[in-house]
């Protein structure tokens, strides 16, 4: 039985109970026709049957109950009274609803229509709108019609009380952003001085320039709950349908005049002077800086839209061999290192001129770095389409029915990461289809659709990308994994493992629980290799599963391999760095704190005990502990674990250099980087440190 069926069944039961309640209320009403409680009870029974009935597809029931409810609503507010006739007809309606609800549902339609019209007549003034039953479009949402891309100007001035209705205007702006390319300018000019400001009121208003193909209704839907109290103006300012051949955009002044932020006379007066128009406006106090900025943004966005249209006709991209890009990234890496040296040296010299130059170089380098790394980014979609083919072929070979659904094909990742991701993903998808998805017959017997589904999604999350491969197959068999692990001597027979730990065993070398070996998978090489390749990309892999419902594998990958934001720490005379994305916070740990913990490596962070790894001992760095040390709290695989260091230096742009062949297998280190003064800092492999303690 699918979920919709389960819900319908639940509704049937509920409706029968309500009808029984209704019946007894009606019979009591006959004795006592003005009892408000009884009337309320009858009304509510009808009301609930109507509302839920329509939800679960009992439209005929909903239509009839709506009429009865209308009459009882009038009884409730005193404009009609309870008569024997009303009670008779309502009882009859109740019986009819019971029939409609019963599974065969054979009901005389003419009788239903007759009852409906009877109740309509009873409802005194027939002002009521007919109920909309089974419509697709109540809350206004989901009105999607693809149109040509148009440019809209939206001014959104929420009511000052908007926060008190639980609405966050920023979420509405975010929703607009999801509709298309969007520039938002906040106007802060109405914010009063601090002493007269009420923090619970909203003083800000926004101009939004949005370019979208979703149509004006989609924009209106965003504001549906606030439109009555807020000031919302939506204007189309550029229509892609016209003006393709002559790029015309309005001058700043014209836009301000059109919006009513400036008068024509003021504009002309100002135009007499020969300065930048916007500057003069602001200087002379004729318009707020934010308003001028908003108009400028609008102008630019129109210009861009028109340029884009022209550009798309011409060649939009060039092809470059990837080695050239690799060289470029390497050079930028070197440049970042040299720049760090320059900044450090300038800092020591105490020379303001030099410092200025160093800062300028720093800014340019970081822009150069970002745009260079950006060149290497590719949408992951190209690989997705390969997998569709794989799924098609495999399911034919294994005589299963499998559909692949992908999401987030536009998610961008470093080219190298995408290439190195191919094999692990092929493996996981193969496993899903071979071991996860059952044969169509088995699926049918288990009440699932014949066709299995493999979902492949990619999404951004901070500075990493999360890939999920989810199937709706049989799920992992915990007992089989356990038995196998004991047989392979991976765990003791008495070991107590959480689901998560148990599932993690399938990543152990040589592990395979498939009962027979097929040509596709099941030789037990695979998941351990998958894990290694993901970790080589500095990623993590995680598996969850529900027996009978399917398995989800989550892979978290860094956006790029070459340069990372990291946190630099110091132990003795040695510097270490770790990816900033893993760091949650840093806290001090005094020798008193350590004494109080009685030899256990636990730090008390605002009341919660966090275990930490003393890196000085871990890396055998001899010296004595200083009086005050620092715990860098990291989050790895959902656990908070601290790393104990002498001191925290700060954020650092780390150009990753791999370690030489000799050191490649050292546990707890994943690479090295060159610091500004030319010395080397080692990059901590935090997940591995945590795993090995």
């Amino acid at each position: 039985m699918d979920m919709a069926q389960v819900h319908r069944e639940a509704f049937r039961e509920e409706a029968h109970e309500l009808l029984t309640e209704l019946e007894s209320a009606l019979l009591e009403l006959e004795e006592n026709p003005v009892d408000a409680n009884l009337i309320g009870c009858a009304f509510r029974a009808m009301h609930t049957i109507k509302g839920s009935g329509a939800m679960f597809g009992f439209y005929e029931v909903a239509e009839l109950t709506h009429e009865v409810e209308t009459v009882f609503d009038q009884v409730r507010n005193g404009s009609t009274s309870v008569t024997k006739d009303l009670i008779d007809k309502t009882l009859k309606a109740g019986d009819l609803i019971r029939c409609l609800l019963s599974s065969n549902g054979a009901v005389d339609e003419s009788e239903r229509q007759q009852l409906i019209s009877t109740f309509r007549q009873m409802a005194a003034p027939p002002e009521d709108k007919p109920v909309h039953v089974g419509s697709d479009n109540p809350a206004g949402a989901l009105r999607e019609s693809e149109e040509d891309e148009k440019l809209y100007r939206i001014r959104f001035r929420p009511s000052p009380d908007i926060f008190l209705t639980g609405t966050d205007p920023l979420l509405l702006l975010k929703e607009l952003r999801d509709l298309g390319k969007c520039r938002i300018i906040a106007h802060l000019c109405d914010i009063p001085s601090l002493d007269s400001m009420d923090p619970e009121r909203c003083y800000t208003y926004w101009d939004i320039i949005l370019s979208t193909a979703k149509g004006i209704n989609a924009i209106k839907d965003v504001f549906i709950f606030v439109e009555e109290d807020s000031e919302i103006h939506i204007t189309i300012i550029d229509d892609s349908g016209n003006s393709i051949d002559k790029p015309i955009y309005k001058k700043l002044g014209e836009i301000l005049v059109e919006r009513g932020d400036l008068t024509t006379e003021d504009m002309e007066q100002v135009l007499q002077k020969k300065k930048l128009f916007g500057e003069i406006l602001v200087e002379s106090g004729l318009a707020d800086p934010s308003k001028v900025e908003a108009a400028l943004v609008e102008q630019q966005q129109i210009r861009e839209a028109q340029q884009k249209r022209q550009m798309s006709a011409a060649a939009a991209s060039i092809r470059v061999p990837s080695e050239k890009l690799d060289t470029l990234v390497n050079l930028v890496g070197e440049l970042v290192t040299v720049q760090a040296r320059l900044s450090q040296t300038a800092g020591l010299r105490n020379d303001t001129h030099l410092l200025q130059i160093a800062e300028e170089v720093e800014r340019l380098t970081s822009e150069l770095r970002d745009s260079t790394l950006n060149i290497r980014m590719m949408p992951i979609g190209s690989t997705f389409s390969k997998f569709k083919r794989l799924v098609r072929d495999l399911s034919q070979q294994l005589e299963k029915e499998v559909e692949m659904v992908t999401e987030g094909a536009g998610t961008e990742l470093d080219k190298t990461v995408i290439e190195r991701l191919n094999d692990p993903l092929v493996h996981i998808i193969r496993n899903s289809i071979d071991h996860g998805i059952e044969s169509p017959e088995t699926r049918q017997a288990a009440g699932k659709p014949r066709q299995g589904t493999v979902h492949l999604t990619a999404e951004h999350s901070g500075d990493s990308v999360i890939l999920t491969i989810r199937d709706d197959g049989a799920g992992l068999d915990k007992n089989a994994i356990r038995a196998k692990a004991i047989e392979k001597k991976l765990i003791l027979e008495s070991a107590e493992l959480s689901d998560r730990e148990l599932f993690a065993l399938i990543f152990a070398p040589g592990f395979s629980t498939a009962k027979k070996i097929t040509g596709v998978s099941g030789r037990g090489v695979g998941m351990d290799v998958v894990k290694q390749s993901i970790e080589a990309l500095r990623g993590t892999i995680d598996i969850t599963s529900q027996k009978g419902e399917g398995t989800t594998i989550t892979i978290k990958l860094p956006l790029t391999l070459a340069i990372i934001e990291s946190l630099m720490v110091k132990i003795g005379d040695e510097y270490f760095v770790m990816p900033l994305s893993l760091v949650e916070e840093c806290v001090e740990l005094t020798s008193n704190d350590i004494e109080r913990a009685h030899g256990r490596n636990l730090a008390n962070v605002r009341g919660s005990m966090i275990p930490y790894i003393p890196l000085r001992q871990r890396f055998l760095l001899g010296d004595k502990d200083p009086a005050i040390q620092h715990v860098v709290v990291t989050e790895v695989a959902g656990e908070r674990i601290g790393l104990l260091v002498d001191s925290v230096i700060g954020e650092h742009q780390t150009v990753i250099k791999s370690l030489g062949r000799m050191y490649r297998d050292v546990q707890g280190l994943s690479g090295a980087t060159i610091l500004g003064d030319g010395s080397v800092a080692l990059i901590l492999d935090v997940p591995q440190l945590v795993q090995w303690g």
Partner: protein
Amino acid sequence: MAHTLLIVDDSASMRQMVSFTLKDAGYEVISANNGKDALAKINNAKISMVITDLNMPEMDGIELIRQLRGLPGFKFTPIVMLTTESQDSKKMAGKQAGASGWIVKPFKPQQLLDTIKKFVK
């Protein structure tokens, strides 16, 4: 951490359907039969959003909204009404009591989720 949503409806099948939809989308759900039950079940829980029916025995939705807005933790909490009354009077009464929005029954699960996204990050 998953958001906790409070769903208040006297219809058991509606509660079941809504909770299923929300849990499936990764939310935590507390459900209550009516306004009084809801107030009793809040119990210091951190509620990210309230979804309430209007017509209920004991305490109806409008009164619940009014009382919730008076509680210390609920001043800015989004509250969405589930309503079959598309008439403006009920909607306005709800808004005046402090509701953030409304969904008209019947709705599809996806419409519910889309509306929640308007209010919860």
